[in-house]
């Protein structure tokens, strides 16, 4: 099984890197760029076959390591 985990900053958390990217896009002449928020994507290969267990494991991985839930949200997709 393959999974994709997307980690994004929570609303209200300042994202100076996203801000810098936003300015750089405007500088490149892309008009109409609003707020940019930077996040992370993890593609994970899994050997398990029980989708419910894999999903529970992936959520535990996010809570324990992949995301800092003080400032970040995560979403788990299983392909």
């Amino acid at each position, binding site marked *: 099984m393959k999974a994709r985990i997307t980690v994004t900053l929570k609303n*209200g*958390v*300042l994202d*100076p*890197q996203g801000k*810098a990217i936003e300015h750089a896009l405007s500088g490149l002449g892309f008009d109409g760029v609003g707020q940019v928020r930077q996040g992370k994507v993890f593609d994970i290969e899994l050997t398990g076959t029980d989708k419910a267990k894999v999903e529970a494991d992936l959520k535990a991985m996010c809570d*324990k*390591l*992949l995301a*800092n839930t*003080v*400032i970040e949200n995560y979403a788990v997709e299983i392909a």
Partner: protein
Amino acid sequence: MKSAVVLLPGLNRDRDMIAALTKISGQAPATVWQTDTEIPDVDLIAIPGGFSFGDYLRCGAIAARMPVMRVVAEKAAKGVPVIGVCNGFQILVEAGLLPGALMRNASLKFVCRQVNLEIANANTMFTRHYKPGQIIRSPVAHHDGNYFADAETLARLEGEGQVVFRYADGTNPNGSINDIAGIVNDKGNVLGLMPHPENLIEAAHGGNDGRALFESALGVAA
């Protein structure tokens, strides 16, 4: 007074911390490695600065999950004083021993300079040799020192006197919320701060404003 220093791959201020603790306590600290599952009985555990695990994932995130940090958490729960400087602070928040998070500096730049710090609470085991409101100097050197906590956590930290060091005189180098430079946990025995007091402990450093922190924590007479 006995101390221990936690060593992790990628730290680079460990020798400075060991030198400071040796000079102030009169004996060399024990050193413990990331995979160690025991820490000797000591009066202070220090986690130095640097770039543990190359700052991969998030600063301090991998280090916080190493076996030695479980022992640090157990010791902290028993009341052993723990201090984390710079990357050590990042590791303590990632380990959940301190609230909040340390994010990329608002300027997006690595800052290496001297700042002024206000002693926001002189009534902690780490600051009792300072005066309330005293302004001290300290070097900072970091890329991710922008302290963040949600409104509820921040109100609790401010209300309970857990904000111990604050950037003063407009010298906030990283955009940290409420100019926070260092905090303690609710029990007051775990301190994390971004500045490097271990680099300002004797005349050869250009000042000794950081010395009283270690003297306070170790119970050494000034």
